[in-house]
């Protein structure tokens, strides 16, 4: 099978349809970028969960007037508790140190806080963090205990917001994918119509279906390729300019997704874009280019 007629068919096809092709490429790019962002936010949530859930534990905050005896008693009881795997005492000075570490990018805030304003606490690692209610019940209200706090609760709201972003990105992405499908199908239909003379002669003289459909499918695949490349560029831009240059500099409380995840998602999105748009063309042709 000689290739040159296919190439020239593809070229004329793209030229005849410049505006439609641009619309397809942009829609594909936007849909894929949103899908990619959705996936990456999901990965970010996992990165943060892994990071925080390892560190975050139950905090048993002590009252400012706790006596050493009460403190020792609590320590002994916590250590003896079968639900508890590890207990660490954190003095006011330790708490201050940690506070300073966490907010070292906002020196003003650190200056305003004195070590004696922060409560001392027992940091408790549980054998099973889901049993928090039992621990809370057992220690709340004991002498010297101000509050028993499941720090995972603090993150839940945050993760909810992130999860909301993720769902939004994915939903808009999927809607965009559907739009892209309709647009591709329409473009291919127009292309098939504008080349109906050529295709009818091809059928007449016995060109194979593959040969007749190949130029259109290649056009679809090209749209997917270019759209996917633009989507990757957008994701990379977000990673460089939004995440690395801004967020990562001001937020040190957790790490961000790395380049590995970006390229992984990028490759996935690109492959999806190519498969999606070429199969959209193929399916359209099945219906509009039949003998």
């Amino acid at each position: 099978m000689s290739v040159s007629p296919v190439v020239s068919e593809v070229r004329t096809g793209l030229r005849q349809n410049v505006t439609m092709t641009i619309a397809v490429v942009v829609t594909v790019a936007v849909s894929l970028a949103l899908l990619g962002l959705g996936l990456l936010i999901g990965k970010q949530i996992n990165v943060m969960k892994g990071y925080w859930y390892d560190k975050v534990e139950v905090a048993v905050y002590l009252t400012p007037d706790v006596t050493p005896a009460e403190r020792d008693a609590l320590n002994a009881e916590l250590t003896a508790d079968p639900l508890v795997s590890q207990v660490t005492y954190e003095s006011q000075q330790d708490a201050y140190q940690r506070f300073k570490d966490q907010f070292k990018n906002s020196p003003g805030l650190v200056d305003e806080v004195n070590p004696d304003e922060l409560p001392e606490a027992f940091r408790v690692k549980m054998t099973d963090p889901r049993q928090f209610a039992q621990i809370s019940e057992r220690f709340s209200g004991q002498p010297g205990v101000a509050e028993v706090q499941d720090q995972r609760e603090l993150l839940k709201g945050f993760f909810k917001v992130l999860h909301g972003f993720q769902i939004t990105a994915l939903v808009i992405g999927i809607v965009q994918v559907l739009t892209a499908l309709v647009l591709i199908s329409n473009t291919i239909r127009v292309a098939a119509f504008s080349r109906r003379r050529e295709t009818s002669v091809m059928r007449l003289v016995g060109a194979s279906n593959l040969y007749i459909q190949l130029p259109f499918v290649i056009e679809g695949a090209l749209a997917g390729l270019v759209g996917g490349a633009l989507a990757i560029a957008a994701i990379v831009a977000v990673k460089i300019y939004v995440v690395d240059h801004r967020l990562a500099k001001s937020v040190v409380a957790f790490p961000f997704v790395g380049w590995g995840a970006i390229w992984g998602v990028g490759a996935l999105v690109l492959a999806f874009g190519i498969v999606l748009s070429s199969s959209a063309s193929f399916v359209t042709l099945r219906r509009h280019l039949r003998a």
Partner: protein
Amino acid sequence: MGQTAQSAGQLGVPVIVLETVTKRFAAGTRPALADVSVSIDRGEFVFLVGASGSGKSTLMRLVTREEAASRGEVTVAGRNLNRLPSWRVPALRREIGCVFQDFRLLPGKTVFANVAFALEVTGRSRGHVRTAVPEVLDLVGLGGKEQRLPHELSGGEQQRVAIARAFAAKPPILLADEPTGNLDPSTSVGIMRLLDRINRIGTTVVMATHDSDVVDAMRRRVIELDDGRVVRDQRRGVYGSPYVRAASRLDAR
């Protein structure tokens, strides 16, 4: 010339066979073809005549498998079209050249490119295209006009390009659906000479036509269809046979 088969059925190798074929386009309607049995041998020249709507084009579309028979068997070039999977239809079409009343040339392509297109899209090599196209253009008498565009040519010349395209791959069968329908009588004579020449090289030619002059001048096999039925199949026929027409008209009443 003339040493190869030219008279009906001389070689006796059937190349297009319809056996009790009925084609109905929608259930409950009058069939476009009703119980038609026709056998055309290799090397024959056959005229299909009959009024518009008598089923000539339907018959041709059954041969190229643009339509499938509702009942009966169609066999073309050794292939049973009833059992031909759709992916093998292109291979069938390569055995058949098609010519139409409206030429169906690609307006943006030169004469050369129009003919070459048919070879390229069926996978012929560039080298083959370079030699085969001038050859077939010489055969149809268009040597020297390779770089013209279709609109620069007369109707007769355009039809010659269409015939060159249909015959470029040397198919054993040539179907012509009213090829002289848009041409004046003297131009038609030229086209008929060309089809005759192609037939004498051994190609089976089936031509649907309303052109009585052409049929009467050629004196070849004539198959007449009326209302989807074969009402005449004559070895050296003429266009109109009054008694058959009268009889069929009486039948209709």
